[in-house]
């Protein structure tokens, strides 16, 4: 490890500590805001982990998110909290492996819509099961988790996600992913085991997303499939990551934070014209930042000499 990497890590550590200390200085609304924001940062980064380099655009985000939330809904009364999270992660992993294996032959938009269909299928199956087997639909979550607790958990998850993403980028696996993204045929002829690599990465990304759902669920007290399997979550995640630049470590973060704040600001100030303004801003962004936020920043900085 070079001195620069160490310095970078130390800096990241300091930022993390500062963020973790936030609830002691800022009010409850700030914590709430940070929960939402960190949630999307993790979702977008985890999404970019798989979809960025491989360019498989996944809309299955909410499937895993919902699985996480539902697991908490089902088990929160019966198991201790850490175990519930563990079980959620394991279920997410299992589903991810099945999904990953079944999607291997799909490419492009077929993959996109397949993953969307999958999320909806899972939602339908959960609904049907609840209706016909357990005979209830909504689930109550009365866990004694404070907003601060949720925030810290998400922050830790964010740190872990960045660490994983950064680590992959530095190893040959990072290169392998870029190769896969460009041309799978070449990748396999270079000796890369595409199947295994894609599967491992998809599973990692899915487990992280599952955990986001599981960690956030206690905030809503009550969950039902239409709440936790809301496809908007998949769309927002995708949009944020793409906007920031999904193939770079910090890209999704730089998409998620400004977009999240934009949503927040617009819905606070223009509750009646929110969609119109949001849409226009969105179109403007696409036209003004053609390569994503991070690339735009980089070229700015690049002109200033530092890269």
């Amino acid at each position, binding site marked *: 490890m070079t001195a620069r990497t160490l310095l970078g890590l130390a800096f990241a550590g300091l930022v993390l500590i500062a963020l973790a200390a936030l609830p002691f200085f800022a009010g409850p609304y700030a914590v709430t805001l940070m929960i939402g924001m960190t949630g999307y940062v993790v979702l977008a980064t985890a999404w970019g982990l798989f979809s960025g380099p491989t360019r498989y655009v996944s809309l299955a985000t909410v499937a895993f998110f919902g699985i996480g939330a539902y697991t908490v809904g089902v088990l929160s009364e019966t198991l201790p909290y850490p175990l519930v999270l563990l079980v959620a992660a394991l279920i997410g992993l299992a589903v991810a492996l099945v999904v990953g294996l079944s999607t291997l032959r799909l490419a492009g938009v077929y993959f996109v819509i397949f993953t969307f269909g999958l999320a909806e299928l899972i939602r339908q199956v959960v609904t049907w099961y609840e209706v016909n087997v357990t005979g209830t639909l909504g689930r109550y979550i009365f866990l004694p988790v404070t907003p601060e607790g949720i925030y810290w958990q998400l922050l830790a998850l964010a740190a872990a996600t960045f660490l994983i993403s950064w680590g992959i980028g530095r190893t040959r696996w990072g290169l392998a992913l870029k190769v896969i993204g460009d041309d799978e045929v070449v990748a396999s*002829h270079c000796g890369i085991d595409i199947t295994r690599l894609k599967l491992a990465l998809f599973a990692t990304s899915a487990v992280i997303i599952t955990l986001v759902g599981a960690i956030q669920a206690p905030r809503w007290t009550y969950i039902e499939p239409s709440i936790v399997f809301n496809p908007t979550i998949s769309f927002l995640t995708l949009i944020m990551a793409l906007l920031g630049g999904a193939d770079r470590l910090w890209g999704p973060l730089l998409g998620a934070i400004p977009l999240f704040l934009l949503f927040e600001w617009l819905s606070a100030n223009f509750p009646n014209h929110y969609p119109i303004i949001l849409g226009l801003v969105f179109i403007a962004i696409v036209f003004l930042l053609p390569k994503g936020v991070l690339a735009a920043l980089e070229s700015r900085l690049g002109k200033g000499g530092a890269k």
Partner: protein
Amino acid sequence: MSELLALTGLTKRFGGLTAVNAVSFSLERGEVVGLLGPNGSGKTTVLNMISGFLPPTGGRITLNGDAISGLGPNHIAKMGVARTFQLVRALPSLTVAENVIAALAFGRQKLWDAVARDAALHHLSAVGLAGRADQPAGSLTYIDQKRMELARALAAEPELLLLDEWLAGLNPTELKTGIDLILSLKDRGITVLLVEHVMDAIRALCGRSIVMNAGRKIADGPTAETLKDPEVVRAYLGDGHV
């Protein structure tokens, strides 16, 4: 000399079309062999099956005596087979060096970091791309991309190299350089199976050639002889060509 690659009764069907029909031949270690035949006779398909890109419909392929038919390309690559593609497949969003490092990192030696970069630069200069390492691969001309593809194939330190019309499109000067390059591979003990339509190159490089027509093998022997075979002349070379 010992046998490196053996094909027995290799067959590939696409729907109703039999692209490769019960082809058998073997390659000795260190040989440079030409695989010739009219367009659409199944040469590329044979290479595709050897490299694992296509599963054979029937027949068997062995490398060093181990069956490789049906294995995935990544396994076969690790067993020492590398190739170039008839229509170049560069990795356009990567740099030239990264294109080569991809093969180094996942090939047999698994090089990474500075070592890999040094090795990549070495392979690049061997194919005449010294100094182009940090260019995006997409900005190379077609021919330079072919060179890069060869560097990538060589980076895997293959025992068997499959070249699919790698010399096509070179002018005579460049062709000469290309031929010398392949000859140097031969000296390093790499076995080469070469699909090519440039007869000058075939004559210069291949002691032996195999000719296919309509999916079948129609000739196999010393190049000078096969190229005189009346069937080969009729089907492939044309009467004007002697």
